[in-house]
């Protein structure tokens, strides 16, 4: 029973993965950039699903909030600001597809080989404790307090910069 359920979950995960990859392919290939952005949101959701399967619930949530809620909204705004939607005929791909595809294929092959030949030090199932939101918060406030502070500086700086860059000329 458990194994059946596990098989079901496994199939579900693989399905999510397949869908994510499919969405990712769509995101880089769709001729309409707006559609591509939407497809990418699909990928993001899929990845959130994968996170859940890895029992990183908080991360999945944060992922969706930040990406779908913030980044992609921005992206879509940007698309709308810069895109003449009336003109979907603008070619969205350059002529580097062939070398890019071949290069990508080579890279992927290499990676696959590497992934399968490396004896990853996987811990025995069940020995890895569940990481709760509490745990994460604790870690961020203790061990990781320094990066945490740093990233805040980064974000402030980035915001400052973005404002300076994007603000309209006073004249």
């Amino acid at each position, binding site marked *: 029973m458990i194994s059946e359920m596990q098989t079901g979950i496994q199939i579900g995960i693989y399905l999510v993965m397949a869908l994510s990859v499919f969405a990712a392919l769509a995101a880089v290939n769709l001729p309409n950039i707006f559609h591509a952005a939407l497809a990418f949101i699909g990928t993001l959701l899929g990845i959130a699903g994968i996170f859940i399967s890895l029992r990183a619930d908080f991360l999945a949530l944060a992922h969706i909030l930040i990406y779908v809620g913030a980044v992609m909204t921005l992206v879509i705004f940007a698309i709308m600001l810069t895109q003449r939607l009336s003109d979907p005929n603008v070619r969205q791909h350059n002529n580097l597809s062939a070398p890019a595809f071949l290069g990508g294929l080579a890279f992927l092959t*290499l990676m696959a080989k*590497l992934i399968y*030949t*490396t*004896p*990853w*030090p996987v811990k025995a199932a069940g020995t890895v404790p569940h990481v709760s939101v509490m745990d994460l918060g604790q870690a961020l406030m*203790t*061990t*990781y*307090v*320094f*990066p945490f502070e*740093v*990233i805040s*500086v*980064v974000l402030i*700086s*980035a915001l*400052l*910069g*973005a404002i*300076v*860059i994007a603000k309209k*000329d*006073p004249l």
Partner: protein
Amino acid sequence: MNATESLRYFLPELFLLSGALISLGLDLFVRNKKLVGFFAVLVLLGTAVFPQVSDLAGKPLELFYGFFTLDAYTCFFRVLTVLILAATVLISISYRELSPSEEGEYYTLLLLTGFGLILMAASTNLLMIFLSVEFVSLMSYILTGFLRKSHKAKEAAMKYLLYGSAASGIMLFGMSLVFGASGSLELSIIRNLSATAPFYGVTLIALILFLVGLGFKISMAPFHMWAPDVYEAAPTPVAAFLTVAPKALGFALMMRVLSTGFLWINWKWSPLLMGLSILTMTVGNVTAIAQTNIKRLLAYSSIAQAGYILMGVCTFNETGVPGVLIYLVAYAFTNLGAFTVVIMVSNSTKSDELLSYAGLAKRAPFLAASLTVFMLSLAGIPPLAGFIGKFYVFSSAIQAGYLTLAVAAAVNSAIAAFYYFKVVRLMYLVPEETPEKIPYPLPLTLALGLLLIGTFAVGLAPSVFIKAVQTALFV
């Protein structure tokens, strides 16, 4: 060491950060934005001489649970960084293109970048490496695209960002793999990984992906191609800064990564870096020959210089490592100096074309002489700073017995002399086109004078600097 304990060792950085924030606030109240600039210089100099709380004679301090490694190495680069930044700010103050409406933020951003650069030097784990590199990169993109009016600058910043993000993405992917294989973010633990045979593959891939990310920062071929475009289009002080500081810290980090994380497979990366070093210097020099824009010429030159510095990284022996540091110091003085002259000339001629340097010797003898000194230093002519750097890296190649590398570097140096002298030739041998006089604004002249002194000082009294470097490395 926990956070509270760490803070007292972290005072210089805190000083810098608060300086940045104050300057941001100052921007709101001060009408003459130049004052913000001078304030920034003071902050930077303050950081440089900020009293060290601890004695660094002992073991390196693992501040903030090891997320900030405070050792002599970090201190060295901290001082180098803030000095470079101080020079950058100084030469920015009289930069004509900078409009008052954005000048205040500009200095703040520079100060913040300084913080990021110091983090790079202090990073010993993957997370901090990623964070600091991205931080500096983001700041670089922003600074590059800072000028509102320049189309080229926007374009270059855009390219820079896309290229840079892709590069850090690639590096990050490598980090993820090595993290998986070792189970830790600490470079010191990753080192143990590289000692075991089954993990060679993943270690090497990770190493190469590291090289991509850091190679991007130091403009190492074939990851250098963004550099000329960015250096040409960026505001000249920013270009000066970008050719020096991120590169220097990129090298700092690269050496940290290689020595802490991958020292045991140096027989693998040493030849690789040798090839990349030769490629880098050749590409830089060969392409520079054909340039007609001084900033672009200096851009390619800076690529070539990265190639020479890589020699020291590649050999990684007792001359190579200090060689890199010395070279960086020498290069910082020299390149900043060259850019200072470029700013002064372009302030009056409104052009960065090489042709506008024709007859400069007549119009502005001091500028021409200074630029000549800097060009000679870049070409590695003694007794200037550049020579000491080159001497060191050549030494390391010879000491390591890398004859190919040494010969390639020798040939390259000769090629390089050709285009450096192209500039000199224009200034001295070609009659002037516009007889206009070039003004000498105080901050720029001050910076120029100091950089000139530095260039000579490294060349004539290298022992002082070598001592500093050795302190940074072996204590």
